[in-house]
C-alpha cells in the first residue's frame, strides 16, 4: 500500500524533514533527520528505478485526480535515473556535512543548513518526477531559493554577492521558463507534459509555440549554465561552503539539463524544435565554445574550486553537445554524462572540501606537497580527475566514448578530433593539481600531515569508487541511458 505512494513520498519526506530540522534546532538532531530523509529518498528512488526497469513507466496521480486535470508524477527510465543521482548525492553530502559544515558555520546556525539542504533535495527531486509543467516551476523555485541561501552561508563575504547575482539570474531564468509555459498553456490549454506533447502539433498559433520554445530554452539554459549564460556559476561554486558546492555541482545543473531534454524531446518533439529554430546548430555552436573557452579559462585559475567550477561549464558543454546530435548515441552520451559527470564532480568537490578544511583555503598553493601530507585525499582527486579527462577504465571515458560514437555516426570526424583535443586541455588542468601535490615541495600554506576526517573522506571515496565502478561495469548506467534515449526519440514519454 505504501509502496504505491513511493513517487509522492520520495519528494514529500525531504520536504517535511526541512521544517522538522528547524523545529528540532539541535544540530545533531537536524543532521540525523536530514540524513535519514535523504537516505529514505535514495532507497525509494532505487526501488522506483527497479520497478520502472521491470514494468515500464509509473504514473502517480496526486490526490487521485487523473491527469490532465490533476498533477501527475511520472517516473520513467530517464527520471528514475536522475532521481537516483540527486538523492544519492544528497545523502552523501548530508553525511559529509557533519564535519565539513560544522567547521564553516557558527554552531547555532547549523540546523538552518540542514533544513535548506532538505528543501533543495526535495525541490530537485520534485522537478525530476513531476509530469506537470507549472508544478515543475514551483519545484524549480523551491530548489533555487534554497540554493541561494546555501550559497550565502559561505564564510567569505563574496559568497553574499555570488548568492545575490545567482538570485537575479536564477529568477530571470525561472521567469523566462514560466513565460514559456504560459504561452504553451495559451496555445494548448493544458499543463500536463504528456498532454502538451499531444496537443502541441494542433496549436492554432505557431508563433506562440515559437516564442515558448525560445523563452524556455533561454530560461533553462540560464539554470544549467550553458555558455554564455554561465557567469553566476564560478563565483557561486567558489564561495559556497564545500558541502554545498559538491551538492550543487553534482545535481542542480544536471536536473536543469533533464528539464531541457524533457521539453525538447518530450513536449516539442525533435521535428518541431529543429523546424521552428535552428536549435541543433545553436546548441552545437554554444557547446563547442563552452568546452573550449571554459577549459582554457580553467587552466589559469589559482583556486581549486574555481578551476573545477569552470571545468563544470565545459563538461556541461559535452552534455549539450550530445543533445545537439539528437541521435540515439548522442542522447545516450548526454544522459550517461549527466550521471557520470555528477558523480565525478561530486567526488572532486567533496575531496577539495577536505583540503579546504585542513588548509583553510583551496588555492593551488595549499595543494603543494599534498601527496605526502594527505595521501588518500590527493589520490582521490587524481582518480576523479582521470574520470574528468575520460581515461579508459573511468566513468568519464564511457560518456566520451558514446559522444565519439555519436559524432562518427553523424559523419563529423572533426567533432571526434575536437572531443579528443579538448580532453587534452582537461588533462592539462588536472595535471596542475598533480604537479602541485606530487612534484612540488610543501609550501608555507601546505597543511600539516594528517588526513581529511573519516566522516568526510568516506562519502568522497564512495563517489571516487563509483567513478571507477561505473567505468568498468557499465551495464546499468549505459543500459538505462540507452533506454532513456530511445524513450526521448520515440516521441511523447
Amino acid at each position, binding site marked *: 500500500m505504501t509502496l504505491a505512494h513511493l513517487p509522492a513520498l520520495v519528494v514529500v519526506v525531504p520536504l517535511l524533514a526541512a521544517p522538522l530540522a528547524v523545529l528540532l534546532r539541535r544540530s545533531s538532531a537536524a543532521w540525523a533527520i536530514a540524513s535519514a530523509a535523504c537516505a529514505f529518498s535514495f532507497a525509494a528512488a532505487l526501488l522506483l528505478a527497479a520497478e520502472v526497469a521491470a514494468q515500464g513507466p509509473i504514473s502517480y496521480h496526486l490526490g487521485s485526480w487523473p491527469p490532465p486535470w490533476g498533477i501527475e508524477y511520472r517516473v520513467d527510465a530517464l527520471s528514475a535515473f536522475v532521481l537516483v543521482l540527486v538523492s544519492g548525492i544528497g545523502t552523501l553530502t548530508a553525511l559529509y556535512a557533519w564535519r565539513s559544515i560544522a567547521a564553516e558555520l557558527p554552531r547555532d546556525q547549523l540546523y538552518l543548513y540542514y533544513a535548506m539542504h532538505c528543501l533543495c533535495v526535495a525541490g530537485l527531486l520534485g522537478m525530476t518526477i513531476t509530469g506537470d509543467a507549472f508544478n515543475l516551476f514551483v519545484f524549480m523555485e523551491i530548489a533555487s531559493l534554497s540554493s*541561494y541561501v546555501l550559497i550565502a552561508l559561505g564564510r567569505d*563575504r*563574496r559568497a553574499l554577492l555570488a*548568492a545575490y547575482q545567482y*538570485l537575479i539570474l536564477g529568477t*530571470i531564468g525561472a*521567469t523566462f521558463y514560466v*513565460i514559456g509555459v504560459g504561452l504553451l498553456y495559451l496555445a494548448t490549454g493544458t499543463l500536463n507534459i504528456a498532454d502538451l506533447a499531444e496537443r502541441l502539433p494542433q496549436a492554432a498559433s505557431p508563433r506562440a509555440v515559437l516564442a515558448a520554445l525560445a523563452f524556455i530554452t533561454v530560461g533553462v539554459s540560464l539554470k544549467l549554465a550553458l555558455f554564455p549564460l554561465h557567469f553566476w556559476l564560478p563565483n557561486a561554486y567558489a564561495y559556497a561552503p564545500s558541502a554545498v558546492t559538491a551538492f550543487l555541482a553534482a545535481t542542480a545543473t544536471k536536473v536543469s539539463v533533464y528539464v531541457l531534454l524533457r521539453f525538447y524531446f518530450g513536449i516539442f518533439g525533435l521535428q518541431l524544435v529543429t523546424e521552428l529554430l535552428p536549435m541543433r546548430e545553436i546548441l552545437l555552436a554554444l557547446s563547442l565554445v563552452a568546452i573550449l573557452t571554459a577549459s582554457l579559462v580553467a587552466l589559469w585559475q589559482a583556486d581549486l574550486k574555481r578551476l573545477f567550477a569552470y571545468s563544470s561549464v565545459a563538461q556541461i558543454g559535452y552534455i549539450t553537445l550530445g543533445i545537439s546530435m539528437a541521435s540515439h548515441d548522442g542522447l545516450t552520451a548526454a544522459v550517461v554524462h549527466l550521471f557520470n559527470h555528477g558523480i565525478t564532480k561530486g567526488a572532486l568537490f567533496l575531496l577539495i572540501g577536505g583540503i579546504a578544511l585542513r588548509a583553510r583555503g583551496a588555492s593551488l598553493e595549499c595543494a603543494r606537497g599534498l601527496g605526502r601530507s594527505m595521501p588518500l585525499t590527493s589520490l582521490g582527486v587524481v582518480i576523479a580527475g582521470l574520470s574528468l579527462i575520460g581515461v579508459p577504465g573511468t566513468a568519464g571515458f564511457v560518456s566520451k566514448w558514446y559522444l565519439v560514437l555519436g559524432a562518427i555516426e553523424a559523419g563529423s570526424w572533426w567533432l571526434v578530433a575536437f572531443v579528443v583535443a579538448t580532453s587534452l586541455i582537461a588533462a592539462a588542468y588536472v595535471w596542475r593539481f598533480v604537479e602541485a601535490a606530487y612534484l612540488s615541495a610543501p609550501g608555507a600554506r601546505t597543511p600539516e600531515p594528517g588526513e581529511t576526517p573519516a566522516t568526510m573522506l568516506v562519502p568522497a571515496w564512495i563517489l571516487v569508487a563509483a567513478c571507477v565502478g561505473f567505468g568498468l561495469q557499465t551495464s546499468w548506467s549505459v543500459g538505462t541511458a540507452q533506454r532513456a534515449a530511445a524513450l526521448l526519440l520515440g516521441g511523447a514519454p
Partner: protein
Amino acid sequence: MSVLGHYSYWITVILMVAGLYIVIARGNLIKKLIGLSIFQTSVYLLYIAPGKLIGGTAPIVADGFKVYSNPLPHVLILTAIVVGVATLALGLAIVVRIREAYGSIEEDEILAADRDSGAGA
C-alpha cells in the same frame, strides 16, 4: 483596432521589458530587485488576462449562465505571487547582509572593495 484590442498584452510587454531593463542597467542592488519584481509581475498579467472571457461569469454552474471565465490561471498565479514574494524577501535579506559586510549597496563600489582586498591579500 486590433492593436488597441490587445492592450493587455502591450502592458505586459512594456512591464516585462522595463523590469528587465532596470535589472540590467541599474547598479543599486535594491533597484535591481524592484526591477526583478516588475518583471515577474508582468508574467502575472500574461497569465491572468487571457483567462477572462467577455461576458463570462465566475465558474459556478448555475442556470442561465453558459460562458465561464477560466479559473485556472488565477490559481497558478496565486502560487507564482507567493514565489515572487519569497524571492523578493530573500533578495532583500541578502542585500541587508551585503550592506553589513561591505557598507554599500552599489554594485560598482562592492566590486571595487573586492578588487582592493583581493590585491591586498
